[in-house]
């Protein structure tokens, strides 16, 4: 297997996941990987090959996957129980909540196959509610990376912090936004592009869509600021407020449902600290049925064009408020 050497640019997110697992496994002898019969899909298989003695197969039993992880964490190990995001956030929620988050155990949960890029598998597998569900759990940290380097940085930050972490992995190759040595900090966002008319807050793969939307808007003479918030919980309240104080309006974008998800997290901060017109881009209370990836993003109104259109709406609303 190819050594990563920190070079994770422009590779598929799940390959970056597998490579980083191997990297962390080398650094942390207490790290153990658990899998529920999906390791070749999630690429946890790379860890299995490198450290077969620290890889535990539990079969198709997600409740048991997270329960065993709790027991291993209570024995001083650092478990990474790996399954698809839908099974973590739906099937095994009680185990994650009470066996892991309630006692604040040191378990790192990768949610694979998130959102629309899961595509053809259909509504049962296209995970949209995991952000909302996981961020509702006390003690849980939640992150959604924009590209491979971001994912790698998040995984390092996940193991460096004590306590439960949930992070998302889309089945997609994303263009690189960040350099290989990119660092991720809990509760810190990144200002990617300065602007003064509107702030586009992105998380996960939607940050790239926000950057494209900013290009579209620039052609029309609109200056959009782009803020990447990979750390959804804790969220960078300061940066959110600072940015909208400059721009006066906001659009959020997430590869998930807007109900209780990232858009909710950002607009909660706005409502409490700095109310401005805002619009949330994401899945709007519907199931994400089977379809092609691009087709699905269009169908659900989540393309860069949709973000740009939403930006113009909130700018209009802002100007109306001012009059």
């Amino acid at each position, binding site marked *: 297997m190819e050594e990563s050497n920190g070079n994770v640019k422009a590779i598929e997110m799940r390959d970056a996941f597998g490579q980083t697992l191997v990297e962390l496994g080398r650094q942390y002898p207490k790290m153990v990987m658990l899998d529920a019969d999906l390791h070749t899909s999630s690429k946890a298989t790379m860890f299995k090959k490198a450290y077969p003695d620290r890889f535990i197969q539990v079969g198709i039993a997600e409740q048991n996957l997270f*329960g065993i992880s709790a*027991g291993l964490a*209570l*024995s*001083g190990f650092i*478990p990474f129980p790996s399954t698809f995001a839908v099974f973590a956030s739906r099937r095994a929620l*009680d185990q994650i909540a009470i066996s892991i988050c309630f006692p604040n155990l040191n378990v790192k949960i990768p949610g694979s196959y998130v959102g629309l890029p899961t595509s053809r598998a259909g509504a049962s597998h296209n995970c949209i509610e995991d952000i909302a569900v996981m961020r509702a759990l006390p003690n849980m940290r939640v992150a959604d990376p924009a590209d491979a380097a971001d994912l790698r940085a998040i995984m390092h930050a996940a193991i460096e912090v004590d306590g439960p972490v949930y992070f998302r992995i889309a089945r997609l190759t994303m263009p690189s936004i960040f350099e290989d040595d990119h660092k991720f900090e809990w509760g810190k966002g990144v200002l990617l592009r300065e602007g003064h008319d509107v702030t586009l807050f992105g998380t996960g793969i939607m940050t790239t869509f926000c950057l494209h939307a900013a290009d579209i808007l620039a052609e029309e003479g609109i200056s959009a600021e782009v803020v990447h918030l990979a750390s959804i919980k804790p969220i960078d309240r300061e940066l959110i407020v600072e940015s909208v104080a400059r721009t006066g309006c906001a659009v959020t974008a997430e590869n998930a449902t807007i109900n209780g998800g990232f858009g909710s997290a950002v607009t909660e901060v706005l409502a409490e600290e700095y109310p401005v017109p805002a619009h949330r881009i994401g899945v709007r209370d519907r199931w994400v049925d089977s379809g092609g990836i691009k087709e699905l993003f269009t169908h659900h109104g989540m393309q860069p064009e949709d973000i740009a259109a939403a930006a113009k709406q909130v700018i209009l609303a802002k100007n109306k408020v001012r009059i």
Partner: protein
Amino acid sequence: MQLPPEKISELEEIAYQIRRLSVEMITYAKWGHVGGSFSMAELLSVLYFHLMIVHPNEPNWDRRDRLVLSKAHGSPGLYAVLALRGYYPIEKVYSYCELGGFEGHTDMLRTPGLETSGGPLGMGLSIAVGMAMGMRFKENPRGRVFCILGDGEVNEGNVWEAAMAASHYHLDNLIAILDYNKVMAKGFVWEEMNIEPIAEKWNAFGWDVIEVDGHDIQALAEAFHRARWIMPRGKPIVVIAHTVKGKGVEMAEFNYKWHTHAPSPETADAMLRELATRYGRPAQGYSKLGEPELKETFYGGE
């Protein structure tokens, strides 16, 4: 393996005190599970005062045995035995259900000696499997993980996921204990959801099975001794302890109405007097009888 008479008396006294303290804390808190705390009084007594290797002064000692109370509503019984074993002063149990005190269901961050947090049924055996694997990783062949399950609890599918994994991984350092008191929250096991043939089910999942009278201290000591030292042969072991829900006080015995129910101070007083009589101890009632009631009640009963 015969226990000396003094040891049996000691373990009986502990079981008596577990029942007494359970009634005390449930009555004081105005909430809790009498029946399920009573049915496992002898189990807890024999485990903590005879079988398990633990250091109450050093609760996190790495080579200790571990107990997972999967039926976490039995917390009063466990809080009582941990106090008696010296993990904290007895008085602490009266913080049961108080804000900042011991949780209604188990919270390991609040109570020294607790190995897990729980409440929702069906989850503890998976945690125990993880701990048993952890002991293997740490090359600790003498250590054991015990997991107390309720009988109705085995309705939960998660229990059988864990049972399957335990035998798949040959975890003979894992001993499950089924507190088979025949009574669930709202009725009898065979009426609510029949679990029989239960020994065959565990067998079919690859476990070695022992059945025992869960209130007979000598028989329990022998069963646990066998489970721990004699039987391990690459298979996990389940001790099916036949018990009586509410064992010790007539009105609570075999009665689902005492699954979740706090006695009034007067009822508690009568219960404790009955317990003392049964154990041939000097008459002793509820310690806080007649004291002004400090705690408000939002709803009566369950």
